[in-house]
């Protein structure tokens, strides 16, 4: 949720010397701040528009006479929304704004010393449809940056268990607890008239999912836009202002965390509010203008006959506050969390209201929220607040939790004194009496003493917890199946194979290409992407896809260890695939069987037929694959002492291009003392197009001279944005050759 720092400070003065983001993060909601005034040039100042006249030479342009308090200037302006009286951001010549530097200009024959800025030009938003009108209260001629500062928006990730933090008051309450202070909501004085609200409406609860429903009536309001301060606060949170009634209820939602709803009293049939579950499906139009099908069982707020709101989710168009509205009913209720969640999910409609009801609201705080909304409406829209609250239902009973002082210390590993624990809990709103804590009505997440341990640790500060080594226990030898699989990988790598990791999923197209029967496969019910429809029954299709993806490599030797699935079984398989003119797969399985004592015929070995290669778009003529169920052979096999290699070698990774690479072979004569690794390093350093440098030959022979050897490399070249032409590749090779000649006095063999 987004919070305004200034709004939090309505309730609690934040410490100046500590970053507020860090404080909120310490509370358990990771927080980042948004920049609203990203370094606006100080030559952008506030000015008031005095007069707007047409441009003598252009229909679309205007001349705006503005004042900065000290001087009057006339600038050319093309914005359709400029009007006399507005406070605007004026950029003097020389000011740096988004999109460049402001110069003195002559536009269609009229001089313009500077310009009036749009939101986008100021760098505070995206809007460029007109100029940005600023708050009326700003002094003239002062830098705009200064006037916008102080509005810090905080973006905090509130976890689903902490619905109580989803308001400015709620977060301020937790922040205050960090300093062991408990904050209270300011007392309200409501100017009620003598007429009774209960004479205007009745409330009836017919759904078990609404434990409490309160309503107030305000008559004779005048619908108008909300005052600037309110519009600004809502706008900074990204909420569109609507009118002084709706904005007041929205304000309370962000202020106190309680979703409210306002109805037009005259649109409420029979002056009745009935909370009930729908008996049959019903088509309605919600406030956002969408037609929606409500289904049987969903809870609604209804008048005598028709629903007027989907309880806890959204109001309906039929009872909307409009410009003619004079009498308003304000609803403040508690709805069951599960019921709201189900409805919102079924409708695919998550609103600020449903989001909070799902996470649980503070039922004790409902009445205050209602009163504050009524007061705000009365102040902003006039009208008369009728006496009393029309009520139905009751408050829940507060829960208690035993404070296990000793167990808390044991779990955290820190000695908190009894007083410290009590003080922390009291600051958070718990009422602790002889080891029993009364849980605050807003904390639905507290259900065990472990929850209290978390509270104590976080408010006390987790950085104070002393880290200690856990007790030693005897170490068992690592000879699990995991180690055996890793040993097999190491052996295959020592034979020159490369490990592939394919997705567990196969698409319908893969199934077709592999001629598999879908009735044997496990199928995903809800794949977001079609590629993820089936679970692989074998590693073979994945390895064929891997081979197809590497057309520029002549000989390919892959292996993969991974799980495969049928309707009744999950197994871990090993598969080995070779493609090209090199080894057949049987040679490798023989080595493997010899090394680990497997039975050779455990492996199923197939030569992939031509038509299948074609379906997988493999151009290589010969592909063979062996596959085995490791679950069958690992338990019966002795591996002896297992040493799993952990790679220590430094790797300078280069990003792989989405364009194909080209390869070249180079052979050199160099001093026999020079290592392949050194040469490889130099090749990579001399060409940023080289992605792979692989030695394939190295031998010493007298005919190259004493102490000399011949080395040969495959070099793969690529570019990020294109396929390299032959000419470009040759150029890179030339660079590499001259670098090697220079560094190692290498001689190219032709």
């Amino acid at each position, binding site marked *: 949720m987004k919070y305004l720092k200034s709004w939090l400070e309505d309730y609690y003065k934040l410490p100046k010397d500590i970053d507020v983001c860090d404080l909120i993060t310490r509370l358990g909601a990771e927080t980042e701040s948004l920049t609203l005034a990203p370094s606006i040039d100080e030559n952008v100042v506030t000015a008031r528009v005095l007069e707007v006249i047409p441009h003598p030479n252009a229909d679309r342009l205007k001349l705006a006479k503005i004042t900065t308090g000290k001087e009057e200037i006339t600038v050319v302006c093309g914005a359709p929304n400029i009007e006399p009286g507005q406070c605007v951001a004026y950029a003097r010549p020389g000011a740096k704004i988004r999109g460049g530097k402001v110069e003195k200009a002559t536009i269609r024959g009229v001089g313009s010393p500077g310009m009036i800025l749009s939101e986008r030009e100021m*760098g505070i938003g995206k809007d460029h449809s007109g100029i940005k009108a600023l708050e009326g209260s700003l002094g003239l001629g002062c830098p705009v940056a200064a006037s916008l500062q102080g509005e810090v928006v905080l973006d905090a990730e509130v976890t689903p268990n902490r619905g109580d933090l989803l308001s400015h008051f709620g977060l301020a309450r937790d922040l205050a607890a960090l300093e062991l202070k408990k904050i209270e909501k300011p007392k309200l004085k409501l100017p009620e008239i003598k007429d009774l609200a209960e004479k205007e409406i009745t409330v009836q609860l017919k759904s078990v999912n609404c434990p409490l429903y309160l309503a107030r009536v305000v008559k004779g309001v005048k619908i108008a836009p909300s005052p600037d301060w309110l519009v600004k606060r809502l706008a900074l949170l990204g909420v569109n202002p609507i009118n002084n009634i709706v904005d007041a209820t929205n304000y309370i939602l962000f202020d106190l965390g309680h979703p409210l709803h306002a109805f037009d009293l005259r649109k409420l049939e029979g002056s009745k509010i009935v909370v009930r579950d729908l008996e049959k499906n019903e088509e309605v139009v919600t406030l956002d203008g969408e037609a929606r099908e409500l289904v049987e069982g969903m809870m609604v707020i209804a008048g005598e006959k028709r629903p007027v709101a989907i309880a806890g989710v959204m109001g309906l168009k039929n009872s909307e506050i409009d410009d003619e509205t004079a009498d308003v009913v304000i609803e403040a209720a508690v709805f069951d969390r599960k019921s709201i969640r189900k409805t919102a999910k079924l409708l695919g409609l998550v609103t600020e209201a449903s989001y909070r009801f799902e996470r649980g609201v503070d039922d004790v705080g409902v009445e205050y929220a209602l009163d504050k909304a009524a007061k705000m409406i009365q102040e902003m829209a006039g009208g008369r607040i009728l006496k009393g609250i029309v009520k139905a239902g009751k408050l829940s009973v507060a829960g208690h939790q035993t404070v296990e002082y000793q167990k808390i210390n044991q*779990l955290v590993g820190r000695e908190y004194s009894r007083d410290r624990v009590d003080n922390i809990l009291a600051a958070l709103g718990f009422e602790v009496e002889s080891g029993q804590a009364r849980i605050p009505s807003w904390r639905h997440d507290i259900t065990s003493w472990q929850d209290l341990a978390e509270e104590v640790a976080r408010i006390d500060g987790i950085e104070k917890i002393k880290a200690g080594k856990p007790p030693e226990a005897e170490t068992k030898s690592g000879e699990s199946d995991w180690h055996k699989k890793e040993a097999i990988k190491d052996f295959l790598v020592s034979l020159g194979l490369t490990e592939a990791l394919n997705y567990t999923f196969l698409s319908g197209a893969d199934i077709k290409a592999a001629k598999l029967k879908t009735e044997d496969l496990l199928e995903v019910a809800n794949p977001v*992407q079609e590629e993820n429809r089936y679970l692989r029954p074998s590693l073979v299709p994945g390895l064929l896809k891997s081979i197809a993806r590497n057309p520029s490599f002549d000989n390919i030797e892959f292996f993969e260890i991974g799980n495969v699935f049928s309707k009744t079984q999950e197994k871990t398989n090993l598969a080995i695939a070779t493609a090209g003119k090199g080894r057949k797969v049987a040679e490798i399985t023989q080595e493997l069987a010899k090394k680990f004592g497997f039975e050779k015929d455990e492996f199923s070995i197939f030569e992939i037929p031509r038509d299948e290669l074609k379906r997988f778009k493999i151009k290589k003529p010969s592909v063979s694959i062996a596959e085995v169920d490791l679950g069958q052979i690992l338990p019966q096999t002795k591996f002896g002492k297992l040493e799993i290699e952990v790679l220590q070698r430094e790797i300078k990774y280069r990003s792989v291009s989405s364009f194909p690479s080209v390869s070249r072979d180079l052979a050199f004569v160099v001093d026999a003392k020079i290592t392949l690794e050194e040469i490889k390093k130099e090749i990579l350093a001399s060409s940023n197009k080289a992605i792979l440098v692989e030695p394939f030959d190295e031998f010493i022979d007298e005919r190259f001279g004493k102490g000399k050897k011949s080395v040969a490399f495959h070099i793969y070249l690529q570019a990020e944005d294109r396929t390299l032409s032959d000419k470009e590749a040759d150029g890179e090779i030339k660079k590499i050759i001259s670098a090697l000649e220079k560094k190692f006095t290498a001689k190219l063999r032709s």
Partner: protein
Amino acid sequence: MIITGHLHPSTLTLRTLVEIFEDLGFEVFEGPEVDDEWHNFDALNVPADHPARDTQDTFWLKDGRLLRTHTSNSQVRSARGKKPPIRYVIPGKCYRNEAVDESHETTLWMLEGLYIGKGITVGHLFWTLDHVMRKLYGEKVEYRIRPHHFPFVEPGYELDLKREKPPASTREGEPQRGGWLEMLGCGMVHPIVLKNMGLDPNEYSGFAFGMGPDRMTMRKYGIKDIRQMWANDLRFLRQF
């Protein structure tokens, strides 16, 4: 000459992690990728209607089972019927049903860790994490631990690693990233989870953590596109 092949970089990272934990006395445990709802959610104190289930997009199978969303699905499986101390790391693939792009994948690696015994504390958890961070990133590593919520732990925490360099330019209206990279979630095993393991929460306590090796692999080698991890492009694989 002997030409050796290449292990996948994910394997390299997992091995590095497993080795660190084995030195601390943890054993490797592996569980199924296709699992029932109970092991993946209910056993871990994530009830059917809990909003936390919304934060994970699950691959549901037509037979009602699912692809595990975390290797925590084997927490209860690994501990049930055993007498503490219980120390396991659980490596494996887990799944997210979402559209793939350069920073989102359907298939992720995870390493879950579990240590249950008598008198195991938050302090023991913090020591273990500190040890692992130093082993992985050196003595000068900078990280922070902050409270967080996971239904299967209480208290719960997340650990962030300080980014080596501040993230790319901040555009207006976007959060100024604090320069922290989320590395793992952890906490003290929830009493309900302990009960589901058949253990008495008044007698035993323990910690659990879950880390994402993919992020570590990408950070270590400077891999920008997570899809490379599953593309099997030999130009990629043969660099390792």
